[in-house]
């Protein structure tokens, strides 16, 4: 698949194929897209981030990641579609054009490449990383319980065989640490958006505790506006709320870390499904899911652009 004209966004792809498409995007849209390597996974696969930028130094930036839970294939697939959308809309969509004229976007389409590869070759239902746990046969850590935010608290397991194992210490997973290091070194990330599936939720902090964040009113209102944008396209309904109130208490999650770190606009999306397919959403729904998700992301990003802090 040497050029975007042959890349089918409406199907699921191997890691190699996705990585090739990242190259294509960076090559074809080199004016605004570049590919950065922010680290390596446990099994030494590169962690690639696409940077969308029109220039300037250390501009305020929006972070988007997808696929930290490897089996949630709709998220990696949506991220690739969204990457193409951002690149192609610059210069034609006034909203994205003004956004990119002011700030940068960083997109990590496959946050857990080892897990993703494993889902393609060994176990389609794999969720965690592939790191070895000393003294235990069970492999992997839930990378969304491994962040330094209430680490090891309620809603995470201390059992290495569990799907929600939090790991030996916060940031023990190199995939998590690489993102943390990148964001801390950048120093000007103003929004942190993470894509998960499934159950159609749009959540803000907190998950490790059930108290409201300081910016509750604003986050709730932005979240509801984004959910309304999502709904406008195909009628998909998203519930909006804090992690603790919409799902359950879960400690060590990424948006809790980012919010406590000072990134006010921290949101987690749980994309389609309605419950019929779980992590096996039919490929025919990839593009509709990506399209509606894009509208939700755009609403949040426009708010971020217009409300510097």
């Amino acid at each position, binding site marked *: 698949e040497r050029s975007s004209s042959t890349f089918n966004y409406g*199907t699921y792809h191997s890691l190699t194929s996705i990585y090739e498409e990242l190259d294509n995007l960076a090559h074809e849209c080199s004016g605004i897209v570049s590919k950065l390597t922010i680290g390596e996974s446990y099994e030494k696969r590169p962690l690639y981030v696409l940077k969308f930028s029109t220039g300037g130094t250390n501009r305020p930036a929006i972070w988007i990641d997808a696929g930290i839970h490897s089996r949630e294939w709709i998220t990696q697939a949506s991220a690739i579609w969204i990457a193409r959308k951002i690149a192609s809309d610059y210069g034609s969509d006034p909203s994205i054009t003004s956004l990119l004229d002011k700030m940068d976007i960083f997109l990590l389409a496959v946050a857990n490449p080892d897990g993703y590869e494993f889902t393609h070759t060994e176990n389609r239902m794999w969720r965690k990383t592939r790191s070895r746990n000393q003294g235990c046969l069970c492999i992997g850590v839930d990378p969304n319980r491994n962040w330094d935010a209430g680490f090891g608290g309620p809603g995470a397991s201390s059992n290495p065989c569990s799907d929600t194992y939090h790991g030996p210490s916060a940031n023990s997973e190199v995939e998590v640490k690489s993102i943390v290091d990148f964001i801390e070194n950048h120093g000007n990330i103003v929004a942190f958006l993470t894509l998960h599936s499934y159950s159609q939720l749009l959540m803000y902090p907190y998950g490790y505790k059930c108290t409201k964040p300081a910016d509750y009113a604003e986050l709730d209102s932005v979240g509801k506006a984004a959910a309304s944008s999502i709904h406008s396209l195909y009628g998909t309904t998203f519930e909006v709320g804090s992690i603790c109130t919409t799902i359950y208490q879960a400690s060590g999650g990424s948006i809790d870390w980012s919010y406590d770190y000072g990134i006010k606009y921290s949101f987690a999306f749980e994309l389609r499904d309605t419950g019929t397919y779980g992590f096996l959403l039919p490929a025919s729904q990839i593009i509709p899911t990506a399209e509606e998700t894009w509208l939700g992301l755009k609403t949040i990003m426009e708010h971020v652009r217009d409300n510097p802090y």
Partner: protein
Amino acid sequence: LETFVGHQVLRIRASNKEQIQKLQFLETLEHLQLDFWLNPSSPALPVDVRIPFHSLQAVKVFLESNSIEYSILIEDLQVVLDEEKQAMALSQQR
């Protein structure tokens, strides 16, 4: 390659806090090897769980004996996985 022949995904609907607690207890039974896609948290939200074939009977008995409502979301996970694989292969050929 791990196969999921006979694995079912159930959607469970707890009607009160007590039933949620029972489902949370079910979550702790590691020998059943349950994979919760949506964890038990509140009666307002469904609980989706993938159940290996060897645990199906035990789980269904547990639910029925506690009068907890459920329905089958995915009858045989491997069938859906095979469809996904076929769709990917077709797409690659195309």
